[in-house]
């Protein structure tokens, strides 16, 4: 890409509202690494900060947008994709990035996620999955692993776990990928591809809630948590002969990372505008 910046000169401070620091995240929280990877990808694509709109929901994930020097919208619980849909349709010139969490997008906002995948409106949705509602004190979410302790599963969770990427792919998302925070350069590359994709792109980031989830489950400090996540990952079979990752809606014990789905499909905004042109053409021609 001609307009792209080179990787080694990325300075995250150029993309932050430094006056907002210190930030509110707990020490060791993976969300900060995810934010770094996102801004790094933005830098590499040389996207104008004035044209970036970050739309987030409620939860720890929802709060990180406020630290980014862009147009930032902190909306209601579960609804950032609905707000982003209006914003992206009203302003196709903006680069719309949704930051959401596992509770925000898979529980209360689940309906909006599947329909955003179906429509294929141009935006990137970064879902920070830390298996828990961190901000409200550590309750179980649709991605809390079975047997894990949370404040609402005090004797271990008994619920099946959503595989967010399988869900997004099945709902029609044209770009789906997953990464862990410890692979920060890979996560940056994945987010870069997602931002560059014309259509709805969904990226699941396996983040870690050290302070609430980690403590409750005795998972150690942040390095131990993210390294144990890494050990559960396997490379994506995307592009191989049997490259279909969607075999069941629940999470397998080892998870594929990287690009999991990538197909070219008509972008909703383009389709809408072409449709309007057709209608006004037929109106004009009588």
């Amino acid at each position, binding site marked *: 890409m001609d307009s792209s910046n080179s990787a080694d000169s990325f300075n995250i401070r150029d993309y932050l509202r430094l006056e907002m620091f210190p930030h509110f995240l707990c020490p060791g929280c993976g969300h900060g690494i995810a934010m770094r990877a996102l801004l790094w990808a933005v830098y590499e694509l040389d996207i104008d900060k004035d044209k970036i709109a970050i739309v987030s929901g409620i939860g720890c994930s929802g709060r990180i947008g406020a630290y980014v020097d862009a147009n930032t919208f902190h*909306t209601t619980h579960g609804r950032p994709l609905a*707000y982003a849909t209006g*914003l992206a349709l009203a302003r196709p010139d903006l680069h719309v990035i949704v930051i959401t969490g596992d509770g925000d997008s898979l529980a209360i906002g689940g309906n*909006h996620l599947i329909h955003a995948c179906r429509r294929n409106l141009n935006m990137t949705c970064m879902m920070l999955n830390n298996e828990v509602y961190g901000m409200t004190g550590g309750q179980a979410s649709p991605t809390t692993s079975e047997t894990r302790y949370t404040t609402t599963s005090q004797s271990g969770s008994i619920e099946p776990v959503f595989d967010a990427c399988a869900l997004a792919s099945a709902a029609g998302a044209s770009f789906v990928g997953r990464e862990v925070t410890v692979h920060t350069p890979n996560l940056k590359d994945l987010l870069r591809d997602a931002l560059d994709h014309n259509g709805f792109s969904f990226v699941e980031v396996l983040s870690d809630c050290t302070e609430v989830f980690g403590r409750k489950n005795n998972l150690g400090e942040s390095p131990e948590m993210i390294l144990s996540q890494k050990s559960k990952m396997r490379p994506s079979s995307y592009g191989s002969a049997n490259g279909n990752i969607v075999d069941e809606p629940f999470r397998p014990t080892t998870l594929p990372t990287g690009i999991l789905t990538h197909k070219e499909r008509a972008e909703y905004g383009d389709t809408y505008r072409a449709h309007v042109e057709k209608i006004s053409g037929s109106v004009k021609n009588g």
Partner: protein
Amino acid sequence: MQSKDTHKDIQGNHACALGAIAAGCKFFAGYPITPSSEIAERMSVELPKNEGTFIQMEDEIASMGAVVGASMGGIKSMTATSGPGFSLKQENLGYASGAEIPCVVVNVMRGGPSTGMPTRPAQGDIMQARWGTHGDHEIIVLTPDSVPEIFSETIRAFNLTEELRVPVIVLYDEVLGHLVETVEMPKEGSLDLKTRKFAQSPAEDFLPYKETDDMVPEFPRPGDGYRTHTTGLTHQENGFPTQDPKQVDRMIKRMSGKMDMHKDVYESWEALECDDADIVICAIGISARAARGALKSLRAQGQKVGLFRPITLWPFPEDALKAATKSAKTVLVPELNAGQMILEVERHCDASTNVVGLNRIDGEHIEPAEIEEKIKELVK
């Protein structure tokens, strides 16, 4: 003379859609619900012809979210719904109120509670329209009583929401939504249309919620270089969250102060033959239509009856009500609910005034004869 081009025989819901288009609405997100669906249907035809976007969302909550999102992008946007759908919109409506994002929400009232009577009229959302979302919040509610007025009040709704950055509800009942009357279409360019005050001041040190003299902050359009933060959390003048008691108090008071300051901009009512009236009927929407009929008949019989009709229902035109009921011994409040607006009327009338309700909650509207009969009984 009436011509086909300038005068249209249309139903209330279509008048609402055409009013929105005339006001410059460029975005509509909706979800099917009786008895308001004709608004979405008409918008799906009109918006593509008028450089706008129509989208049917996956649910009521999403359509409200999309409307607020589109308005955050700087364009005039609207949604329409009815009772249960209006309940679902409340959280994002509260966001629009708290973050001061302009938007218009139409609620065509049907019988409740719950699914109630989808095809029957009611006026049961008078309180929900004011207090449906949580917390101390500002909102404007307009209550037209005819098809031409639905058209003109929808235009006014856009003007008010743009000028004051307060969400505006257009509230009418199923009868008006489906009633067909003649609407005179305004000549192109003849309307006085308002657009929000887009930020022009230097981006450096720009405060998106600055306490300006008129209490209405400038709107920073994304892409114009302001790069501000918008949140539903209580916020400071710079837009970032705060729980500092002084700042929170100041934010909430600025928003209520804004409403106190601009009463002359949004207040609207009709007072008909109230000056010498012994009895004043206070009604909105279809009940006000019935009251007009009763008033005419009773005046012809020599009864001193007047009508007070809030057109802007919320904030309630209390001074105008007080003036209109000065000479009245009795105020009759006919409404299609178990007694909602009457609470507000009682609150503002003299303690010596006899405030009486006339209520129907059975899915039928009130006939002029019922009002006439009730008044005859009251003067006996």
